[in-house]
């Protein structure tokens, strides 16, 4: 009953300030909009779980040196393959390195890969898709067929081919994954561009003498950006899995950098007797991918009114 009463009562204080229909300033209106967006997002409990997972990941990455109980690169062969204990919370691997600390430091690598891939792939996709959609004709045909060619390969296989030619390493893995990730954004951006290219305000800018590039960069791209962002959050899990796959095959981050895929690879040889060595980073990959997927779903429901 008390719950009902509290919803019926007029909101007071900060909530009233946020929910007012007549905001006093642009800043207040923006805060109110953000608050309403948060309320819509919070209605989806799975989305909140996803957000929590991602926040924990961000926290681990930011404060890794303080959270980790040991240096993940220090080897102690007398303590190899230990099960979980008070000293080594999640045990040690076959070099005697602390798994928990490696996991915490590995979150930095994971975030580094995800962020860098998005920073490279999203603008490329946006540029290709918007140009193809706006200019049309042969430009469209050529660019979209190139996109289709990239689409027609399985992602990991294509990334493997790129890393094989570039040489193994963390940055090359990022480039390889980015090269396989942009076509999805190009498709989304092209679809959005086709929807706005015939509109009157584009015609109006053309009568003002704007060049094609100016129109694409300043008038078309800002309108396709929200769809690309939603698509990107849904893509993060895939990027993490591809990165872990490359790490597992020894083509991603090189030892001694703690990387989750490479950690599974190390634990693989002892998987029957000391299962936790491989299982712990595997669980980490699983949970973080799930977290990004749940967050992406939640965000899409808030940002894309067409879906609901």
């Amino acid at each position, binding site marked *: 009953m008390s719950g009902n009463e509290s919803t019926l009562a007029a909101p007071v204080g900060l909530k009233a300030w946020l929910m007012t229909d007549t905001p006093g300033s*642009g800043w207040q209106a923006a805060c109110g909009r953000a608050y309403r967006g948060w309320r819509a997002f919070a209605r989806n409990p799975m989305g909140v779980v996803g957000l929590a997972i991602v926040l924990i990941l961000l926290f681990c990455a930011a404060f890794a040196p303080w959270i980790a109980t040991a240096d993940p690169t220090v080897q102690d062969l007398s303590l190899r393959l230990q099960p979980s204990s008070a000293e080594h919370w999640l045990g040690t691997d076959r070099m005697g390195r602390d798994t928990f600390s490696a996991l915490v430091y590995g979150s930095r690598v994971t975030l580094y890969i995800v962020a860098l891939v998005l920073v490279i792939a999203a603008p490329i996709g946006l540029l290709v898709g918007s140009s193809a959609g706006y200019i049309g004709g042969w430009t469209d045909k050529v660019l979209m067929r190139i996109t289709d060619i990239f689409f027609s390969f399985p992602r990991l296989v294509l990334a493997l081919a790129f890393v094989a030619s570039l040489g193994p390493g963390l940055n090359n893995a990022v480039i390889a994954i980015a090269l396989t990730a942009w076509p999805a954004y190009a498709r989304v951006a092209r679809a959005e561009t086709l929807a706005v290219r015939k*509109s*009157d*305000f584009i*015609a*109006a*800018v*053309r*009568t*003002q*003498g*704007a*060049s094609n590039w*100016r129109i694409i960069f*300043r*008038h078309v791209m*800002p*309108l396709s950006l929200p769809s690309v962002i939603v698509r990107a959050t849904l893509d993060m899990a895939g990027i993490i899995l591809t990165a872990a796959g490359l790490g597992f095959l020894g083509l991603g981050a090189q030892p001694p950098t703690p990387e989750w895929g490479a950690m599974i690879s190390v634990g693989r040889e002892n998987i029957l007797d000391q299962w936790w060595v491989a299982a712990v980073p595997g669980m980490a990959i699983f949970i973080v991918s799930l977290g990004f997927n749940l967050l992406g779903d939640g965000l899409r429901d808030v940002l894309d009114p067409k879906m609901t």
Partner: protein
Amino acid sequence: MIISDQPLLQIENLSVRYITPTGVVDALRNVSFELGREKLGVVGESGSGKSTLGRAILRLIPRPGEVSADRLAFMGQDLNGMSETEMRRIRGKQITMILQDPKFSLNPVMKAGDQILEALSIHGHINRREGRMRVIEILKAVRIRDPERVYNAYIHELSGGMGQRVMTAMMVVTNPMLLIADEPTSALDVTVRMQVLAIIDDLVTQRGMGLIFISHDLNLVGSFCDRILIMYGGRIVESSRASELHNCKHPYTRGLLESLPSIEHPKDVLATLKRDPAWLMAP
């Protein structure tokens, strides 16, 4: 530099045709006229080629449209032979076009002021502070009372009349020589319409621009413009001084005039236009 007796715009035998799989559509047929520093009204029914005329002058006919003209000259410069880059320097700087509905012709995710600034920055670099001042100035010139607020407003936050004034500001801020207004008031209600017209009139007179005013409202054009072209089926069927509109002889013009209700000479039944296929041929 500018020779006063040289016409602003000279058009001879301008034709626009769309070649489609189902046949050739003639949107404009051999249109010829000259324009000085005056207000020229272009009137006709829907599909008579009025808007196509405006777009053809700016060379913005989309594919698969084809434009041909014996002469299409703006202040002595041949627009027809210009490259796309040269054309872009003309568009927005020397010839601009106000579009019909501000709700659709302004970018929904850009602040109104920034869109006006866009016109300035396309044609020459300008620093933000100076640009902002010129935008505020032009917003005042189109009689917007709180230009600071409108500068930071998005189009959905403005009324239709305000939106059309922003659009007008956007098109005159570069001080063009020729302004094409494509039904600038048909999306507005009657009282706001008169305000917007008065603003356009003032700007055109003060700055000595030429104006091509495209409309389907014969009365409005008759009272607002100096000279009127009547279009039908992509052709100019008649040209007349606005003051002598009632003396027009072409049966299409007569038909248009007779189908208008008048408060001084009420009629029980208004005349209906009877279209004659022969009008499409040469007069």
